[in-house]
């Protein structure tokens, strides 16, 4: 049972965590009393809006496949972190993902090779390299949690660290949002408005890499991409303006995130995958509503 793994979570000692914990424990549900559920819900409320906004741009820019590749490359990042003897592979993953994102953005910019082919090569290459490095001494199972994710074991310190990074990404994204929209709509048009297309794409690519990497340990690299794509795809079915598009995506992402965490408690299932199924359900609803 996944929930049992959460027993090691230490006490809330941070004031902001105490607040969200108090609010949740006031709810008349069994799950609301457990600290691991409180942390998981806080975590998902931080990540869901970030993924929704990013997703709105990702699916408009043929970047979905790229985001998937970044998720998979996290395995190599973890392996490099382990090789370097780091206790926590997050930083190694971040550095590796950012470097990879920059490399892919550069190849795209130079039009040196068809983007899909490059991304496909990078994806299979990094996954294979990651598995080889991590399984070398036996004991690959220790890293299996990165494949399916484990949001129920996150500690308050994790939530805080990821929350700070996520806030930074959202602020950068809001600052660059209009420029990214112009580049997506029409690159020459963006260039004529004084937007440096290459720099904007590089920043956007790096922001995707950071966001995906941040949440790998929580969501699992097998399903992380769906969390990016599904809420935005559903929102497209419902929205006619850019404002409504983002609002719908955030609402759908939050609903499926919170719903998925609670459902996984009752089903004792892996949380990331349960969230994705909730998002898929909402996507189905959006298709029906559009008709």
């Amino acid at each position: 049972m996944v929930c049992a793994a959460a027993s090691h979570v230490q006490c809330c000692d941070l004031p902001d965590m105490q607040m969200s914990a108090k609010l949740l424990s006031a709810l008349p549900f069994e799950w609301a009393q457990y600290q691991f559920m409180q942390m998981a819900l806080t975590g998902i409320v931080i990540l869901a809006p970030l993924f929704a906004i990013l997703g709105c741009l990702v699916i408009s820019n043929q970047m979905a496949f790229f985001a998937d590749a970044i998720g998979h490359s996290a395995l190599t990042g973890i392996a490099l972190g382990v090789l370097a003897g780091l206790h926590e592979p997050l930083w190694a993953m971040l550095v590796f993902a950012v470097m990879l994102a920059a490399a892919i953005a550069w190849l795209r910019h130079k039009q040196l090779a068809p983007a899909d082919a490059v991304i496909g090569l990078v994806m299979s290459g990094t996954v294979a390299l990651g598995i080889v490095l991590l399984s070398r001494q036996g004991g690959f199972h220790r890293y299996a949690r990165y494949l399916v994710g484990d949001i129920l074991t996150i500690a308050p310190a994790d939530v805080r660290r990821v929350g700070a990074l996520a806030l930074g990404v959202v602020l950068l994204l809001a600052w660059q949002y209009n420029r990214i929209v112009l580049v997506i709509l029409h690159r020459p048009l963006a260039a004529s408005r004084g937007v440096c297309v290459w720099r904007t794409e590089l920043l956007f690519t790096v922001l995707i890499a950071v966001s995906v990497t941040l949440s790998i340990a929580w969501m699992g690299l097998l399903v992380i991409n769906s969390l990016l794509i599904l809420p935005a795809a559903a929102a497209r079915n419902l929205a006619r303006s850019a404002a409504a598009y983002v609002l719908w995506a955030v609402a759908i992402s939050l609903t499926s995130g919170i719903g998925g965490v609670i459902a996984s408690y009752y089903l004792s299932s892996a949380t990331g995958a349960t969230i994705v199924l909730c998002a898929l359900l909402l996507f189905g609803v959006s298709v029906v509503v559009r008709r």
Partner: protein
Amino acid sequence: MSGECATGARREMAVPASRVACGACCTMVEQLGVRIHGRTILENINLHVHCGELLTIIGPNGAGKTTLLRALINELPHSGRLRFSAIRDGRSVAQAVIGYVPQKLDIDRSMPVTVMELFAAAAGRRPVFFGVSRRVRETAIHNLEAVEAGQLADRPLGRLSGGELQRVMLALALAPKPDILLLDEPLASVDHAGVAAFYRTVAAVRAQRDMAVIMVSHNLAEAARIATRMVFLNRTIVCEGAPAEVLAHPLVQATFGTSAWRVEAT
């Protein structure tokens, strides 16, 4: 006002007298060249355009017409440079505001964005999902009305017809007021009524706002009718001058046929 501008003006004595020139600004393209993957697309392009002029660029397919415009807006890496000088509010200005109307059809129509949000995205950094400020809204409406498209302000981009989208792109290119307006075959897929409305608008804004217009065109008759000057481009500038002169040039006739442009005119 630099010395080159005066020289340029002398060189272009053949330009029709109908052109409206403020005489205070000029755009010079110097030694522009573009190479992509080791292949030369454009080389040795020298152009000199005054405000009030309407320069049309004609040439065979693959001549580099679109590439030239994309180099001028700095989207493509290129050699050479674009120099601009003007006197604005009594001060000399070296940075041109460029308006650009792309070819139709290659805009991402599947993304939910309204016309108004497109203006807001181009106007500043306030994220479009926070709504459109009143200032941006008023400017956008004003510019849309100037191109007979005021009623399109809140329509999603994906639901505009070809002609409507082109007029919206023109309105966008006019905000803020450009010194140079670049039009890349803006009417390739627009219906007849749309073409007339578009040219009416271009003529009106050129007269009112005193800007240089550079337009790539496939329609020789139309290009000749509205241009003050014409350039025949084929990897480099083959010839330039008054439209009638350019169309009479042997190389132009060899490319398009001796009577091609008259046939298209009917």
